Every structure is written in C-alpha cells, then in structure tokens.
C-alpha cells in the first residue's frame, strides 16, 4: 500500500480520539484482516492508549516494529502480524 521509512504498510487505522479498550478492538479487527507478516499502522492517542495497545498486541504474539510521535502528539505504531 505505502511505505513509512523502511516498512511497507498494508493497512491503516486511525484511532485518534478512541479510548481504551475500543482502540484495541479496532486494532484486532484490522490485524484479523491482514496476513501474517503484513504490517498495520495504527494511530493512537498519547497516555493510556499508547501505554496499553502496543503492550496488548505484543502479548498476543505480534511485533511492534516502529513507534514514533507525530507532530499533533499522537503516536504512529507499526505492528507486524504474527
């Protein structure tokens, strides 16, 4: 679909303004749609969302391959599906 730095992004979900735990629900929905090895980009709010969502997907076996702060304070997180 597109690339950010060295990562090809296969799906995106903007979870700005979405609190816990629905941001994780949407992240899991997107992960269910892509194939193992593909990369999902999720945009998460600062605070609880960035604290919780990456931790939860890692617990389910996926890999967080990149995480960086955007100019508006939200976070771009790239997750490779297990």
């Amino acid at each position, binding site marked *: 679909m597109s690339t950010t730095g060295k990562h090809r992004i296969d799906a995106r979900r903007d979870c700005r303004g979405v609190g816990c*735990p*629905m941001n*994780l*629900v*949407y992240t*899991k*929905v997107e992960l*269910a*749609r892509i194939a193992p090895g593909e990369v999902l980009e999720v945009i998460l709010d600062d605070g609880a969302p960035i604290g919780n969502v990456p931790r939860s997907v890692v*617990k*389910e076996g996926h890999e967080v391959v990149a995480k960086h702060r955007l100019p508006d304070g939200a976070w771009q997180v790239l997750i490779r599906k297990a």
Partner: protein
Amino acid sequence: MIDFSEEQLQRYSRHILLADVGVEGQARLAEARVLVVGAGGLGAPVCLYLAAAGVGTIGIVDADCVEISNLQRQICHFTHNIGDAKADSAREKMLAINPEITVNVHYEYLRADNVLGIIGGYDFVVEGTDNFPAKFLVNDACIMAKVPFCHGGILRFRGQAMTVIPGESACYRCVFREPPPPDAVPSCSEAGVLGAIAGMLGSIQAAETLKFITGAGRLLTDALLTFDAKDMEFRKIPLSCQEDCPVCGEAPEIDSLIDYEQGGCALAGA
C-alpha cells in the same frame, strides 16, 4: 470472515479483546448452531448467555409451560410468563438481549423417534434436562449422531457437568451405565434445589459451549466436575472412555435409541 458492524464490535468487544477468542472466535460464534435441551433451571442461564454471546442460531427443546414453582431458579421466565410455553418465554428474553440471533423453538419432549431429527441440525447440544431417561437418550443420540454435548445435572446443593466429544472422550454412559431403577430415583421430598445452583451449573455449561465453538482453552472432557455448594467445594474426577461402554465402547450393545421409563418424583434431577 464476518464483517462486524460498529455496533456489533461494541456489543462483542469483551470477547474480541480476549486473545483466545478475538474477531475470529466471535465470527465462529455468529456462525454456530447450538441446541439447548430443556429451558428450565440449567437451560435458562444457558439460553441467556448464549444469546448474549452472539451464538447465531440457538434451538430450544421444551414442551412445558411456565409454572410459578419454576420462577425460584429458572431465571429466564418471569411472573408474567406463567402459563406460556417455556420455549417462547426463553426466546422472548434471548431476543430482548440480542435481536440479531435466530432462536428456533421445538415444543417437544425428546423421544427415541424424534431426537436424531432434532439434534441433527446443530453443532453442539447442551443437555439441561430434569430426568434420567432424557439424559441417557441425549447421550446415546449424540454419540450415534456424533454431535458433541455438555451434560449437566443439579439436585439440592449439588451439581455436576461433563463435556462429551463423541469418538474422543468418555460419554455419560461410560460413567453411569444405565438409569437408576425407578425406586432409587429421589422422591419429591428429596427433590428440592437451591435456586442459585442452577445458575452456577448452567453458566459452566454455557462456558463449555463458548469454549467448544471458539476453540478457547481445554474442555471439560474425560472428567466429571462436581460441586457441593454447602461447603462450596468443587472436584474434578478424571474419567476415560470405557472399552465396555454399552454405547461408545468397542462392541456397543446399544444400537438403537431407548425410551426409558421415569421413576420416582418427576422433579428429580432438575
């Protein structure tokens, strides 16, 4: 893969969040067909939880009508349902919780000549009947039709449950060979039951059903779970398939279904 609506994602979010269920498990629930035999003490919580969980098609088998004496434990029936068919009363509450599911009603008592036709269309059966003849009939029919099921029984302060995967795990007859003789079945004075026990055991059966459909965890197979709420003690008794089981053994002597006669008090085993 089912595309869940925004509302469905919210409704089922607590399942989807579970690593062992997820979107895939919730989609399996939506596609599943489960038959609940008996809309009484056990069937009531089973029906409500399966409906709430989004099990796509749920069948209810019950020929009885709601009586006031049911209301102490059969929590899907309300005072205004007295006189209504239990299957209809249960269906009304299930659809009120979750209008997206399909509920089929079978106003019948299971017999040797109708049981296979009824269970045949389902992926899993929850046996919550109130009598031994029906318990043996459901076991034998599920073994013959290879339909997995969860047995449940309650009496006084006690309950027991086991899940049976035909061809893989011990069946009800591997443990209990045949119905007790009619005079050994509890009399009416022994047939009381603490209402909340029905919820405890029915919830165990509902959880087994959801685990079976989603593939989460390990089923209550090759084991009989028993509890006594007086001391709140739970035991899990290991079981194994019996080679000489009359229905699932190596040379089963039962090759057709049997309508046993119910002895003792009609409430026994409820």
